[in-house]
């Protein structure tokens, strides 16, 4: 499976070249365009309850689409929901933890499971569950803004809204930066302190900050 990420880094899409009979799984609604020889099969992956769990807890779609090139080779383009970079990771029998909604598409061999992030994750603003992707194959995930890889050695502090994903060799705790005063006044709120060694994928923008900023322009109807 070859691919090309076009339009980096602001509004990229990923173009995937499928060989005959090759498939790729994607979030529902991610498809932008495809050649006519590709067929789509929609299914609740892993059954109704797994899908419900994934949908409610990790912010993924209930149904996943499987695109297969059934008539020779084909090309298909996927886009993430928000503006921001698309990242490709070649998985070779390894695991990665993704935060809510980051997953776009991946090889059908990859196993996707929701992972409970602990009590702490309830305050993390990233959904209660994370998505654990394991196995071998191509994985595409997206960020809000650009993506940067941080090589954590020992410890690293990151704002909770900026986590895209991390390797499972890392563990994190949610904490407040500074005292109670900072919690409410510094605008930093809660942060994640990562411990261990491994890669941490950081996004350069934060959904909630953007939403808060955009909210100021929202039209509010005046009360009569």
């Amino acid at each position, binding site marked *: 499976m070859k691919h090309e990420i076009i339009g980096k880094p602001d509004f990229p899409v990923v173009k995937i070249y499928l060989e005959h009979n090759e498939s790729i799984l994607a979030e529902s609604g991610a498809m932008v365009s495809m050649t006519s020889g590709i067929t789509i099969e929609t299914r609740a992956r892993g059954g*109704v309850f797994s899908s419900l769990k994934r949908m409610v807890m990790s912010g993924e779609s209930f149904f996943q689409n499987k695109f297969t090139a059934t008539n020779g080779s084909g090309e298909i383009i996927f886009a993430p929901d928000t503006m921001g970079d698309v990242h490709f990771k070649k998985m070779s029998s390894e695991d990665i933890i993704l935060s809510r909604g980051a997953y776009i598409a991946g090889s059908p061999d990859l196993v996707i499971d929701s992972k409970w992030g602990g009590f702490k994750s309830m305050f993390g603003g990233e959904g209660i569950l994370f998505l654990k992707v394991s196995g071998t194959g191509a994985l595409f995930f997206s960020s809000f803004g650009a993506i940067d890889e941080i090589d954590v*050695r*020992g410890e690293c502090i990151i704002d909770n809204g900026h986590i895209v994903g991390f390797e499972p060799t890392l563990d994190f705790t949610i904490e407040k930066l500074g005292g109670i005063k900072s919690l409410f006044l510094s605008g930093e709120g809660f942060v994640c302190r990562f*411990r261990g060694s491994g890669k941490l994928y950081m996004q350069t923008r934060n959904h909630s900050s953007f939403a808060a900023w955009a909210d100021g322009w929202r039209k509010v109807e005046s009360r009569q």
Partner: protein
Amino acid sequence: MKYKGLVFDETFSEGKKEAEILLQNEYTLLARFDGGELHIELDRAQIHIGGFDHDMVYFYPDAVRKNPAVLVHGAEILTKLAENSNPETRQKAINATKVRGKKKKFRLTGIIFIISLVAGLISLATTEAASIAVKLIPVKWDEKLGEIGYPSAIASIAPGSSRVDDKYVIQSLDTIKNRLTGALKKTPFKYSITIINSPIENAFALPGGRIVVLKGLLLKARSPEEVAGILAHEITHVEKRHAMKQIVQNTGLMAILQIIIGDTASGGAVLLQAGSELLSLGYSRSMESEADIGGMKLLAAANIPSDGLIQFFKKMSENEKEMKNMEWLLTHPLSEKRAQTLEELSRKYKPGKVEPFNIDWKKIQNQLR
């Protein structure tokens, strides 16, 4: 004993390499990787629990440096280290094990908490989804279900009983029924009354509009208004399609989803199959109170005094000691709270003017005896 793990080093091109780790002796941990090996002195090392699932052990060279680091998959190595002859290493291993236990326990409580929360939400969602699904189910299905359910309902409640065929009794009950159904604004159901020759004091409605009244109930009631109260309650069960809701909820999410998505044929097959058995289940408490409220409203709209039902309840409860045959009371227990609510409801929903029934109740009871 060899352990699987990783060695992290900034000088590696990928930052990490897979490694095979072993305890060389009681002072040294050895990690072998492609192109070299790394020794960690255990008495100087930091030992930490790590990883997203708290099932990895990190070994850092000393109290300050975090690079290079050795990571061991699984916590078995801690058990081994807890037997180490070096007291300092032993203590570190024990501490790390304790931290791991705490983290795992915390996570477990969290999981239990979340599962119960989710279970609650799902049951709520199922109730909601059931209501939506029921709206999509054609009314014909209720009738079908009633037809299928009738023989088994009679067989379980009053086996082998014949129907009452006395003209006056049938006409009188039809009069009561017609007054009530006439007060319904709009109904997709055709109501009919079947009177069964059985001493049991019971009445129930089948989905689709068939109401079965057992003779015992008519003998117990002192006036047509009391029977009207019970009929109004049962009619509300039919109008609100409680049986269908109950069945949809019990057959599960799959059937509901199939109906919502539009695959009514297979969803329906599941429903009808399970339906006749599930009919014997009582209604939920919320359905009962919905029927209480609906019944009271209906009585008021039909110009029937609404205290009949309450009187009937009270009378049955007084004789509670002789519980024999009082089936309707068994499925509709009169708790103090329910009595109170019913009385409040009857004050709230009062008929504008009372139109008494022109029915000779004594005659009915004599005919039935």
